């Protein structure tokens, strides 16, 4: 079964909804929504390799993984800002700066890749592991952070939206954690020796990816309804 046929459309919807959400709401939502939108970029690039000539370059693969890493960093930063707001009620910064800073970091990463030797398969594997490691640990940290935000604002109109975000990060943890497990133990090459572990991890990764895409789109639609 080709999971990407289901995953990709879901991430296109989730990315579109989150980017649209980032435009019309308070500044702190920009980081969170842009972070989720970048998942789409990180997912679309590898999927496009088989369709678009010239896309299957190691540099493009490296950039896709880096954008994925930037994605979780940006959204984690957004949740941290929200947590700070829920504790101090202080708001600062502006939307344009978030967009510009994100584009600048992606641009700098692209320059970094271009000025270095073309990534080998081993390098790409390391970059992918770094990406998944960031996702796994920051997902756990974000679940805890969102729990604290929820407690701070629990009787406000938007509080249930944060409950939904906890579910999102649980699915992301499932998806990225399974991926990381496969990569760290090199289960792709050891699947004959450990078929159950490999297939279970593969299934968890795919189902986690689908549920993450679904829950991201659903959460932002739900938030948009709550913030109407």
């Amino acid at each position: 079964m080709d999971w990407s046929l289901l995953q990709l459309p879901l991430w296109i919807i989730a990315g579109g909804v989150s980017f649209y959400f980032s435009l019309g709401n308070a500044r702190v939502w920009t980081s969170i929504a842009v972070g989720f939108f970048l998942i789409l970029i990180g997912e679309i690039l590898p999927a496009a390799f088989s369709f678009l000539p010239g896309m299957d370059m190691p540099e493009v693969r490296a950039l896709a993984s880096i954008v994925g890493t930037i994605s979780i960093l940006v959204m984690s930063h957004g949740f941290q800002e929200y947590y700070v707001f829920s504790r101090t009620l202080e708001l600062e910064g502006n939307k344009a700066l978030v967009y510009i800073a994100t584009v600048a970091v992606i641009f700098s990463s692209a320059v970094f890749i271009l000025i270095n030797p073309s990534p080998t398969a081993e390098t790409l594997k390391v970059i992918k592991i770094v990406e998944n490691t960031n996702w796994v640990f920051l997902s756990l940290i974000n679940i805890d952070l969102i729990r604290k935000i929820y407690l701070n604002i629990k009787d406000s109109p938007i509080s249930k939206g944060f409950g939904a975000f906890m579910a999102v990060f649980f699915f992301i943890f499932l998806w990225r954690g399974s991926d990381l497990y496969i990569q760290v133990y090199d289960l792709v090459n050891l699947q004959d020796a450990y078929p159950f572990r490999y297939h279970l991890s593969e299934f968890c990764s795919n189902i986690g990816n689908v549920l993450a895409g679904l829950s991201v789109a659903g959460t932002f639609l739900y938030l948009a309804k709550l913030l109407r």
Partner: protein
Amino acid sequence: MILLPRGNAVREKVDPGKINLPDALGKLQKSQFTGYLRFDTVKGTGIVIFTAGKLISALFEEGNDQLIAYDAIARIFEVSLQGQANLDIYKLSGDLAISIHALLHGKVLYKGQELKLIDIKALLGKLKEDKMSGCLRIYTDDKIALIFYRDGNPLGFFHDGSTDIETRADESMSVARLPGAKVDVLSSGGADAINLADLMASADLSALWRKAQEIVIKQRKSLSEAESRDRQVLENDRRVRVQLMLRATAEAHIGKIGTSLVEKEYEKYFPEGKPLDEAVFNKLLDHLGNAAKMVAGGTTIKKMIDDMRKGFRNLLKES
């Protein structure tokens, strides 16, 4: 209330708080003035009597209390400076001025007797028999006449507009005939026979004036401080009520975080001592609305802000 007929008016309805009273009294002294000054104030009535430029008598009646001489002058200065006082100056003959003095410092034998209820002939006979010196004061709400007696014999009459003791009884009798006329019987107690000293010659009225000024300044200061304290208490009470209203409204619309947002914005826009102001309040609401976007949608926020604005106006109307 000291009831005296108005003599020949020199000045009427002067605000004594706006003139330098020691200077004014000095001018009366220099001009050899004979007559009396009447100070009607919210605290009581003061009478200052001059004969030939000598300030022979001062009286201030405040409720049931009477101050005389320097105490009276000091009090007259003080209440005049406090404002809402009226000064009338009437010219009299020397005899009349002394008679008025004797009358003010004498004894009230009978007070407020209804003329129609008493046997006036018997009363006059009694005065003659007792060889009383003093006067009968016959008055209605707006007219007064005095009939002076010495050793039981009538000396003459004094009524509104006259400057001397008159021998014609017409005006005085016309007062007696008015409905509701009353009579007081006053004994001079020999005060008219005493050689009277000039109070201005034996005291520095300017010093009394300065002291009165100091007292009034102190009173005004403490009054203004008390008023300011009252205002502050009222303002603080209003501040607390507005803050409670905002907190309750915010909590109802956006939950507990709303109360924290209100407290933060309220401290910023209305720190301790800053009076409530609608323009500043609207700025507070704008800022609060922006912060509330973090936890609620536009419709909820608009409803919350509208309720807060309504509540604020109601509280302003109440206080």
